[in-house]
Structure formats: structure tokens, C-alpha cells
């Protein structure tokens, strides 16, 4: 955690985020501190690089990781994604949209009683695999499902 955090902070400084954090007082220890942003991974342009960026290059497929997405998205701008991990000791869930310009969409680290489960809504640029990863005991597991994005009509 500490090494990653330091690396990330360095990246953040470059983009001015850290300065912003300090200026706004977000780094004061009394506040709920949001995680620092893994710039390298989030700015990776392909899924392989993004996986490497979060240390999940060697993820194995797992049926104990459940992803719920529509087969066909009603609108690619808002695609509901639910991920539940039944893998013991899951500490993080990561969501990627493989064919998006920047595949990595979100990472959630859980603690203090949080269940390894999250629902979110993502933009899909086109028909794509949506991949979920879970980190448990230092190892990564993955599952993926395709979501089709189609042309829209009037929209109610």
C-alpha cells in the first residue's frame, strides 16, 4: 500500500491533483480521506496495461465472482454494472470496460465490515466486454461479460 501510495502521489503531483488536495484541506487527517488516484492504471489505453497498472496481470478466472450487466445496453452512456464477490477475504473490486479508450473504470477497496459488492453505472463507447476483478489475499480473480451497445431511437 505504502509504495503504491507514494508512486501514485508522485503522479498526482504532476497533474496538480495533490496541490488541489492540500489547498482544499482534503489531506487533513481528521477528514475521511479518499484514495489517491492510480494515474498510470487509469490512463492506460488498453486492458492489459491497465491490469498491469493495478498489479492484476496474472488474474485467474473465477466463478465465485459474479457480474451483472445487461446483454444489450438501453443506453451506452449509463450501463448498470453490479459486481459481487463470493471469494473469501475479498478486499477490492475493480471494473474495466475492455474496449473503452481508457479501460479501467473504477476500483473499490473495502474494509471494516463492507461486503465485497458494488453497483455502479458506466459509459460504454461501443459493444464491449465488461470485466470485473476481485483481489483476495493478494491474488486477483476475474470474470467478464459482453454488453452490446446499439443505435438508439426516440427515448420515451
Amino acid at each position, binding site marked *: 500500500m505504502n509504495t503504491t501510495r507514494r508512486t501514485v502521489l508522485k503522479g498526482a503531483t504532476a497533474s496538480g491533483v495533490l496541490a488541489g488536495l492540500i489547498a482544499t484541506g482534503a489531506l487533513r487527517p481528521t477528514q475521511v480521506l479518499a484514495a489517491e488516484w492510480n494515474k498510470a492504471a487509469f490512463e492506460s489505453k488498453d486492458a492489459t496495461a491497465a491490469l498491469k497498472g493495478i498489479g492484476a496481470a496474472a488474474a485467474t478466472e473465477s466463478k465465485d465472482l459474479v457480474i451483472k450487466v445487461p446483454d444489450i445496453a438501453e443506453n451506452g452512456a449509463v450501463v448498470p454494472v453490479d459486481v459481487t464477490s463470493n471469494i473469501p477475504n475479498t478486499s477490492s473490486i475493480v471494473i474495466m470496460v475492455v474496449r473503452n479508450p481508457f479501460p479501467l473504470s473504477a476500483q473499490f477497496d473495502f474494509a471494516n465490515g463492507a461486503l465485497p459488492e458494488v453497483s455502479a453505472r458506466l*459509459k460504454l463507447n*461501443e*459493444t464491449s466486454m465488461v470485466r470485473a476483478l476481485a483481489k483476495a489475499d493478494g491474488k486477483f480473480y476475474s470474470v467478464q461479460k459482453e454488453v452490446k451497445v446499439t443505435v438508439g431511437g426516440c427515448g420515451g
Partner: protein
Amino acid sequence: MQHRVIGALCAMAVMGGVFAQTPRKPAAKPAAQAAPAPTAEAKDAATLEFEKFRAEMEDSNPAELFEAKGEEFWKSRHGPKNVSLAESCDLGQGVGKIEGAYVKMPRYFADADSVMDAERRIVWCMVEKQGFKFDDIAKRPFANENFTPDITNLVTYVAGHSRSMKVDVPLKDPKVREAYEIGKEMAAYRAGPYDFSCNTCHGSDGKRIRMQNLPNLSTPKGAMSGVQGWPGYRMTGGVMLTHQWRMGDCFRQQRFPQPKYASDAVAYLLTYMIGNANGEVYKGPGIKR
């Protein structure tokens, strides 16, 4: 075929795609590619697939964010006259009363001598009670990009207080009935380069434009599906839009000129449409494609 580059009839002009300037890669081929022509049932399966996620989408609807802003505006003092709508605006249920007001409009308001839908009435209050200029409101009446007008938040707030209530447009009022009958004739009026009327798309059952179902506005259920979900959070563009906006967008797609904001034309059409939905249950601000 590159699906999303080509604008659908109704796709919003702003949105070429979620990431519009990204160079296009060939779209992944659908798995069912080799199969013979997809049947109508296959299409309905797509609709069913959307439905599966509807409840969740509606349960956590960003519309709530706009409702909250509308509440703030309704209860605080604004405008040249520095009064709140809560202490001055009568939506037909008494000054400041909003419970059930949305589903009981359009109705006739003697003080304005007009049949008014909810949005038109709230605009009237902003002008008459708070001292805003109508033209200022009408200049930018609908949300786009990162701008949401106060009137949209207000309509969303008021609509949120008719959740789970039955639509009850007072059609027995002769003035409302008159508006209904005129609205009905407007819906049938074909003109423009494509000979379209409202009824071309919304006058019969079970039709679709691309993947979107077209409600038949002449039936209670059909009319209700045209009423349901407005004001709605539009996934395309992520903006909050009202029923007034939706009527205008229909005319855009009908290749007509634009109906004037908060006009008789829109109020009468809404009277026809919402009146046809009388007795159906309104679920509150919705989420739209």
C-alpha cells in the same frame, strides 16, 4: 455497420457517442450474427432486457438531485419581488400546496384564464408572483450540457410530490374539455416535409422506432407510458428534462417548427395526452434513455 456514428432519427445532436471523438474501431460482431433474420420476438427480448434493469435504474435515479434543488428554490425567496413560491404559488390545490398537484394538471386557472400544464403554471407563478420576466425564462427553458434551469428543478420537485398517485385531469371542466378536444385534433394534424402527425408514431399499438417502443397516446395505458417518467433524467447527455421539452422534441422529429414555450399548443396537447391517462398511477420523476 458502424452503429453509433450514424445518427438515429431521434438521437440527440450533441451526442455522437459517449466518447465522440475517439477513433472508431470496428464494432464487435454480435454473437447471433450468423443466425437468420432476427424475429420480432428477439427484439422484444431486448426490450425485456432493458426492463430487467429498469427497477434498479428508477430506484437510484439522479432525478433526486434535481428534486432537491427544486425544493430549495420553491421554499426560498427569489425574483424581483423576493417572494417564495411556497408562499405565493397556487398549483390548483391551494397556495403552496404541492401534494398531488402534478397529476391534477393540466387544469383551468381562472387567475390566468388559461388551461395550464404543471410547467406552464409554475412559470406563470415565477412571472406573476416573483416578478421574473417570461422572456428570460423562455430564452433557455430546458437543460443542456451543464445547465439546468430553475424551472426544470421546480417541475421535478413538484412532480415528486405526486408519486404513486392517480392521474386526474379535470376533464369535466368545460374549459379543460375544450383544450382536450383541440389537443386531440392537433395530434392528428399531418404536415411538413414527411407528412407526419403526432399520431403517425403514437396513434397505434405495438410499434417501435428503432428499439424504442412508441406508446399509443389514444389509450389510457399508452397515454400513461407517454406521461410516465416525465420529468425524466435523460441518460443521453445526463440532463433533467420536462414533459414540455418532450413535446417539443416530438415536433422536432416530426420535422415541424418549434412549439412556443409554455404555450396553448403544448398545454392543449398535454391535456389530451395526460387526460387520456386519467386513472393510471404516476410513479414520479423518471429515468429515460
